[in-house]
């Protein structure tokens, strides 16, 4: 008797909940490289704003492959946090559903998608060259990405897996310096790339990278902006970021709705909320991430605004290079590594 009664109560509660917010029925599935504490925090904030989401987090490259593999049978409703080139490739594969978020107004044109209305950018991150200031002084540190092949930096920096978004971005940043007017890389560029790998510690896992810094072999960190500080804190050293000659590649992260989602309205509502200046400011306050929406930048803490101008950007047209990246990475993997 008790059991039945309990069940009836539970059932009515569920119905009541379902009636108040439709989103409770089934959370939308979000793919993003933002995992662990960041992922949990985003999920909590979203829930507080009335968006039930379930995050599936993995490396950027892995998520990219997964979305492509699931093309016929999409599992995700929204993807965010993949970088320019990856989002551009997914768009070419017709993975996205068009939707212009409420916050697209006021967004600088480079971060909008006025042609297809599919991918909108919300964060930007420089991929920087930093060094362990406890083990190297400013005079001895490289001043440009092109310095890395010098003998004095042999075995002092780590190149991670080319499947990582960060690695891919700075490799592209280096290669485009050697591009001709058609966007093809000169022989000199490929020779440089060979030297860059020969002079480096090459690893395939994040742990192996950390280990190289722990045992003191590596002192120069090629990393995304937030990763530099995180690694320095984990290993226990002071990191100094170099404003390199020739500029630093900037990447921005986008959000899009997956084509074929069965929860289009919930997905649209989530996208509107996520990219809004209010949430972007909250995220900047929590994690120090630099937003791209001018209102969000203006509302961010001062040090975040300062970080935004720490290094000068390298001019890269990601839409132009996106179709070439697979071929370049293949050449690096098969002929250089």
């Amino acid at each position: 008797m008790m059991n039945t009664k309990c069940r009836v109560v539970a059932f009515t509660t569920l119905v009541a909940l379902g009636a108040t917010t439709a989103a409770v029925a089934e959370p939308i599935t979000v793919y993003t490289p933002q995992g662990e504490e960041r992922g949990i925090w985003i999920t909590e904030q979203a829930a507080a704003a009335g968006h039930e989401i379930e995050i599936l987090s993995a490396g950027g490259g892995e998520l990219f492959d997964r979305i492509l593999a699931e093309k016929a049978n999409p599992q995700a409703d929204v993807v965010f946090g993949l970088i320019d080139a990856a989002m551009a490739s997914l768009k070419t594969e017709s993975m996205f559903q068009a939707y212009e978020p409420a916050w697209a107004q006021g967004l600088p044109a480079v971060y909008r998608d006025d042609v297809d209305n599919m991918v909108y950018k919300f964060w930007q991150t420089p991929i920087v060259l930093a060094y362990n200031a406890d083990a190297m002084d400013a005079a001895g540190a490289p001043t440009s990405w092109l310095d890395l092949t010098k003998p004095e930096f042999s075995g002092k920096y780590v190149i991670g897996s080319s499947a990582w978004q960060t690695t891919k971005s700075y490799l592209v940043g280096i290669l485009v310096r050697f591009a001709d007017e058609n966007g093809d890389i000169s022989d000199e560029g490929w020779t440089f790339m060979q030297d860059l790998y020969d002079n480096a510690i090459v690893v395939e896992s994040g742990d192996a990278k950390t280990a190289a810094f722990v045992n003191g072999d590596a002192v120069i960190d090629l990393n995304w902006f937030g990763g530099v500080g995180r690694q320095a804190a984990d290993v226990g050293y002071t990191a100094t970021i170099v404003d390199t000659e020739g500029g630093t590649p900037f990447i921005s992260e986008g959000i899009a709705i997956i084509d074929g989602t069965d929860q289009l309205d919930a997905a649209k509502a989530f996208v509107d909320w996520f990219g809004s200046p209010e949430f972007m400011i909250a995220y900047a306050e929590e994690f120090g991430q630099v937003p791209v929406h001018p209102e969000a930048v203006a509302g961010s803490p001062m040090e975040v605004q300062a970080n935004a101008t720490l290094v000068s950007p390298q001019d890269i047209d990601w839409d132009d290079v996106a179709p070439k990246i697979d071929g370049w990475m293949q050449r690096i993997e098969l002929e250089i590594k």
Partner: protein
Amino acid sequence: MTGLQFQKGLYYIGIALILWVAVSFIVAPIYSVLTQAFVDGSGLNFGAAQELAASGRVSNAIRNTLIVSALSVLTVNIIGIFEVAALEYLDIKGRRFLKFAYAMPLIFGSVVAATGYNFTYGQTGVVTRAIQSIFPALPNDWFSGVFAVVVAHTFLLTSFHYLFLRAAIRRVDYSVIEAARSLGASNLRAFRSVVLPLLLPTIFAASLLVTYESLGSFAIPAVVGGQRFDMIAELILTLNSLRRPDMAAMLSVLLGVAVILCVLLLQRIEKRGSYSGGAKTPVAIQRIRLSNPVTNTLTHGFAYLIAALQLLPVALVVLFSFAPAKSIMSEVIPSSLSLKNYAAVLSGGEAFTPLKNSLFMGGTAVAMALLVSLFVVILANRHRNKLTTALDLTFMLPWTLPVPFIAIGLIVTFATPNLLIGNQTLLGSYWILPIGYAIVVIPLMIRFLRAAFYALDPFQLEAAQALGAPPLYRFMRVTLPAIAPIIVLVAGLNINTILSEYTMSAFLFNVNNKPLSIALFEGARSANPEQAAINLVYMTLIMVFSYVIISIADRYGLGKSSGR
């Protein structure tokens, strides 16, 4: 009679299903690999081969694979023949201990052994730290590249010698050895010129199996090979992740041709018969006591040294699985022991997931494979015609093909909606991996079940038939109970194989079904001691499981199966 008709209907549905399985999951994937490799939109195309030839990394991988295979055959034979001689030809004290130690590769293989060697000799390995405390100059990565892979192969691939060569030497007629010795031959000479020639066919067969395993070696080079060292199997995976399935397919065809050559040679040797030297009623071999004290001491020393090297990684893994995570990367002998790591894995948290995944996928794969294999064997038993022979051969095909070949086939076939499976996409789904496992274990199952059927008493079945029992009833009441023990054992042996299966797993796993072998591999590269502790527990559990299954199988005379 409607019951009989129903059974007949069921039987034809079964045949249709089996044909569908064969076409969808064996023929179609093989066809896909070949078309990927050689055909593009405009017809025959060798572009993938040209690109492969141009790649420095590919030629390095091919060279590494050939060097490793050639060296492995040599070193495995040296150690393997010595082990067999020490156990069966010479009188060495502590034979039972040696036998135990030399049997280690039977339970310590694939990714388990690879991570075990890494734990012992790798960058932060116990032995590496122990040596560094005496010789600080030893580089962290001393155990890497060709050297490390060949050393690991040398000890781990002796399982074929342990299983087959020991059986062969026992068949040697002792009177022949005695005759040689009475003619004045020394022990060594008698071994070299009388025993060894009799063993040559078996040695050759074991060498081919070693070549076969070395050519397709994946887990060992991936874990202990170190940075910028590849062998072919790994590179096929890399090519696939670079979204060049055509190049991956081409390289798997190359590997496939090499492996098929090995298999064909092996079959010729098997046909010629390896029993030529065996007497019909051999006089059991008497183990020879070495009379020269120096030779005797040296031989004992060498025998124990090999035993120690075989046991060391296993012992360290088991010992440290009881050690606190803190001591794993810092101590040479743990200062305290507890069951905490086991509790962490078995309490059902995150660390339990890969174990659960592998057990579940292993169980379902084996169940699917058993159904298919049973039906194929029954069919071949009842009707001997072209169709059943073709079916039989089709299901045996995966045995002659390297695993990366089959994996690439499944990926290419099921990356897009495929009509064969109701326009579904399998890539990225949970089920693609258990299906892959099933394909790989079916050939061995068919072999065992066929043997079990041959051993059935035909009179019982005839009696049942004479008494009017319908086919399904005969199968359920007579055949099945008779072969049930074999089925249980074969299931156990194959779940055991799947628990540490690495190659298929690496190609087909995804975040929903990450299996034990992949967790082990990732754990081996992790600098986190908690992860290392969990890894050691996984490895110990797999070894215990293997030990139990193989001991039971051995008692039933099925021990040979563990060779593959």
